[in-house]
Structure formats: structure tokens, C-alpha cells
């Protein structure tokens, strides 16, 4: 509670520095909060307007919050920061509090992408979250191309919502970029199966071969085991560290998220 109060104070100071036109939401936070100064004023206005428009159209908050270092506010895990932001600022649209929040902590380049509410989770499937992060957001963040990364976030979000409203949310079945890969895999499997089948048929046409064994000529009771021993020698152990989701940025985390949210954390 104490760290939340401190964080609120810092955010209030930060908010006071933002252009008046940008702070035009129902909540206390803008849709796009840049506490580090990664974006120009014009970029910030454009992104804010875009986020606001999409949020109202699809009745789901689309938000970006960037802080310089989460540890300054007492957080060691960006997942906790994102959860606290969502609950403390009462983020989200409607009764279900539908919200998609991208949180960045720039000091260690941590990120968290979280989705709350049925409407948001229907549009942002786990496959969709992986796709938007791995193909559209993280590569651009890694190149410090922040404006493009956030623009891609909103563009893809618009596409996800449209697809969900049409009853075909973005997933492995509806991802058009998978079609080529699926067809290629199907062709490769078919060629292998065809080759194996043809090889079996072909082998039935070549039936003359030298006999290598004489199993048929061991009479009943002709095999007598006269000695057997299975002796334990030694044991070897190998340990492999299990990659945690927050350290690798490649795993999917659902535990520890408030309100049954889904999403992913990591570093870029």
C-alpha cells in the first residue's frame, strides 16, 4: 500500500508535466504515459488519440505506461507493477474492466503485456499475444523504435478486435501468415509418407535375399539361459535450469496476474 501511495505521488507529478490536451480520459492516467521521454510531443499526441479512439470503438482500454525504473517505486517484478497500475487506477472499460496494458520499465528494459476482461481476452488469444509481441512490438522495442512499436500495437489490436467481432479471433487457425507454413509442412509430411509407402511396395517386388539368421531352426526348448546378471554400476545426474518467464521473455505467464488476466512478461 505504501509503495502504491509513493507511486501515485510520482505519477501525479509526472502527469502535471504532460500537455493538457493529452490528459483527456475518464481515468486518472492518459492512454499513453511516457515517463521517460521516449516519444516526441507530436508522437505522444498521435498515439494518445489513436488509443482513445480504439478504446472507445471497441469498449476496451488500450494503454501504454513507460517508467524509467520500476525499482524506484519498490517493484522487483514488472508483473506486480502492471497489476497494481490496473487495480489502483481502476483501469479498464465497462463493468468487466476490459483492458490491454503494455508496461515498460526502461532501466532493465522490462516489459509486461497484460489482458483483462472477457472482451479483451476474446480478441487477444494466447497465440495472438505471442504473435503481437514477437513479430510486431519486441523487435521494434529492441531497435529503440518506440513510436513504430506502439503504432504496431494499436494497429494489430484493431485487427484483433475486428476479427473477434467477426467470430474468428486471431489464433493458429485464422493467422493467415501460418497458411504457407502449414501447407509446406503438409507437403513435406506427404512426401515422406509417399516415399515410405512406395518403398514398402517396392520391397515386395524384391524378395530374394540371403538368409542372415536361423531362428526357424531352434527347436522347442532349444534355448537355455545358463546365466544372467544385471549389475548396477553408478548413477549420473544432470541439472538443467528451468528458464523463468520473466528472465527469458519467451514464456507465457498467467499465474500471479490479478483478475484472471493473461499475458506475458520479459525483457526486450
Amino acid at each position, binding site marked *: 500500500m505504501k509503495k502504491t501511495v509513493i507511486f501515485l505521488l510520482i505519477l501525479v507529478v509526472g502527469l502535471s508535466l504532460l500537455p493538457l490536451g493529452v490528459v483527456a480520459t475518464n481515468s486518472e492516467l492518459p492512454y499513453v504515459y511516457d515517463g521517460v521521454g521516449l516519444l516526441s510531443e507530436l508522437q505522444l499526441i498521435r498515439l494518445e488519440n489513436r488509443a482513445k479512439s480504439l478504446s472507445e470503438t471497441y469498449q476496451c482500454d488500450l494503454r501504454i505506461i513507460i517508467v524509467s525504473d520500476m525499482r524506484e517505486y519498490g517493484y522487483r517484478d514488472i508483473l506486480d507493477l502492471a497489476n497494481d497500475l490496473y487495480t489502483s487506477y481502476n483501469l479498464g472499460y465497462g463493468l468487466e474492466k476490459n483492458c490491454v496494458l503494455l508496461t515498460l520499465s526502461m532501466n532493465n528494459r522490462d516489459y509486461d503485456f497484460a489482458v483483462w476482461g472477457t472482451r479483451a481476452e476474446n480478441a487477444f488469444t494466447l497465440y495472438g499475444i505471442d504473435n503481437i509481441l514477437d513479430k510486431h512490438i519486441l523487435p521494434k522495442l529492441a531497435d529503440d523504435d518506440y513510436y513504430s512499436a506502439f503504432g504496431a500495437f494499436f494497429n494489430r489490436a484493431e485487427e484483433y478486435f475486428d476479427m473477434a467481432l467477426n467470430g474468428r479471433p486471431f489464433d*493458429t*487457425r485464422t493467422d493467415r501468415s501460418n*497458411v504457407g507454413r*502449414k*501447407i509446406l*509442412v*503438409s*507437403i513435406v*509430411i*506427404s*512426401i515422406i*509418407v*509417399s*516415399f515410405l*509407402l*512406395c518403398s514398402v*511396395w*517396392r520391397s*515386395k*517386388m*524384391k*524378395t*530374394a*535375399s*540371403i*538368409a*542372415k*539368421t*536361423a*531362428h*526357424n*531352426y*531352434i*527347436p522347442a526348448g*532349444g*534355448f*537355455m*539361459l*545358463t*546365466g*544372467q*546378471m*544385471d*549389475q*548396477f*554400476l*553408478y*548413477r*549420473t*545426474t*544432470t*541439472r*538443467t*535450469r*528451468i528458464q*523463468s518467464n520473466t528472465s527469458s521473455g519467451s514464456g507465457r505467464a498467467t499465474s500471479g496476474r490479478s483478475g484472471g488476466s493473461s499475458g506475458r512478461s520479459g525483457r526486450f
Partner: protein
Amino acid sequence: MSSQMTNYQCPNCLAGLRFDGGKGKLLCDHCDNEFEVELVEQLFADKEEAAVSAGVEPQWDITETNNFTDEEAAHLRGYICSSCAAEIICDDTTVATSCPYCGNPTVIPGQLSSQGRPDLVIPFKLDKKAAIAALKNYYKGKKFLPKSFSDENHLEEIKGVYVPFWLFDGQADADMRFRGTTSRTYTSGNYRVTETSHYRITRSANVSFEKVPADASSKMPDTHMDSVEPFDYNELKPFSTAYLPGFLADKYDVKAEDCVERANTRITNSTEEAIANTVSGYATLTREYSRINLRSGDVKYVLLPVWMLSTKWNNKNYLFTMNGQTGKLIGDLPVDKGRYFTWFIGIAGGLSVILSVISLFI
């Protein structure tokens, strides 16, 4: 040179007899009578005895010409057909044949000296019709067989042959050692732990082998003779020339000592496999040591029934072999590359479409 030859003649009409595998009797195609093997053997023995006591010498002649070299002549034998008096020339391994002039089945028992006389024989059970039917059946379902092969080709030759085999009895005393591992994986804290247990496995066994066959004829391809196995040894009978009329028969020209290595290799491989099959429960198994001590047993000389069917297609000979007792038929067929690729592309293409459609809905 051997000069004696035998026609088993019908006691009723004196026509030549032939052995019928299906009935297990000697048949006369002229008067349709059937005779038990033992009866004809006795009649023939009585007839020979009477001829000797009357001082009648068999009418025979061998004409050697200068056309054959000494080496060739050493491997040729000449006989006079006792049915039509024609001269027959064959090689020195032929035991039974038929006269090319009168078609009379002929046995040349002189070839079966005390050393060359088989101990046992499995009589033919299946006749020529069965062999032809088996070959036609063998063509069925062969998707890559050229259509013209089955449509156009005609059997060039079909012959029932008693093939000489050596049957080896033996015992293998074996000691083998393996290295095996088992493993289990579990999670401990932030680590995935894999424990691998290492074992030394030793096995000793005695394995008996009975009647491991190796064909004793250099004329017969080993691949074909091995592939028509197994024969049912329960039907082995003491050798009698009465089983030979109507079929070809060769005596061995590969000595038992020269076949030992083939039999030993098969016995060794089977012993190792049988012992390895007693080791189970390991994730990995590596053979470290194997010692197989072979002890030789009896060796029997037998004649086993085989139908040889040869055909020609596109100027190439194709040989098929059928077990004259069990009907198992083997042989290599030509492959139509066009058909092969048509099937290959057809299956791959069709399956690709089906899998692609399915994958789009998964």
C-alpha cells in the same frame, strides 16, 4: 562315367512312371494306374536281380567324340535311354532328368554313389499347375510391375528340381555383455534433474539348432534357395529314387565343408539376437562383448523340392523359385519407373491437399 540309368516302368503297360507329389504315388499316364512307391521299388529290384541272374547286361553305349575337350568330357556323362534307346548327354551332377526324345522320366542312380546318395528327401507336394498359379498370384497387387511384363511375358521354362542341401545340426555356447541405462527426470526447485543409472548386463546361454539348411548346388542362386525356406522337416523321408521320376535332380557339387561358414554365420546371428531379446527394461542398450563357441553336430545330405520358373522380358531373364512343399514363391520383379513416380506423386499430391485442408481448420 556312370552308365546305369533307370526308368520306373508301369507293371501293367511298361510305360514310364512319374512321381505325383499330391498323391505321394507313382502314376502311369498311359493306363492311369497308381502304384505305391514301396511296391514299385520292390518290383524294380526283382527285375534287376532277374536280369543279372540271366546274364543280361544292360544295353548301353557311350560315344565320346573329339569335339569335347578333356576338361569338358570330365564333367559330362552319356546314357542310353532304356525306353527309346536314344543317347542322352548331361553333366556329372544330374541325378534325374527326362529323355528329350521320348520324354520318359529317367533316374541315373549310378550318380548316387555311396558318397553321393542323399540321406533324406522331401517329396514334391505341389505340381506344375500350382507353381504357375502361384506365379500369377505373385504378380497381383504389385503396383509398380510393368503391365507388359504380366501381359506379354510367357514362361520360358518351368522345372521341378530336387535341390541338394546340407542340413547342419549344432549348438552354440554364448557369453554376452551389454551396457544399459535407465533414466528418470524430475523437477527440483528451478532445475530439471535427470538421473541416469548405468548397468552392466551379462548373459550366458546354450542354443541348439537343428537342420540349418545350406544349398549344395553351385547352379542354384543362394538368395533364391535361402528365401524359399522354411521346409517342413516332418515330411522328410528316407531317400528313394522312386521319388525322382518326373523331376530333375542334381547331386551336390558344393561340399559340406564349404557350406559350414554360411550355416555358422546364421547360427551366430540368431544366438546373439535370442540372447539380446532376454534383456529388457533399459532405455539404451549397447553390446560390449560377445563370445560364441560353436559345436558342430550331424550333417545330413538331403534333396528338397523346388520349382524353378524362368521368364524373359526386354531381353532380360527373370527367375522365380517356389518351395515345392509349402508353395512359398519368391523372385525379383522389374519396376516400371513411370508407374513408380506416378504413384509417388499421386500419393504425395493427394495427401498434401487433404493435410493442407485439415491443417487450416486445426
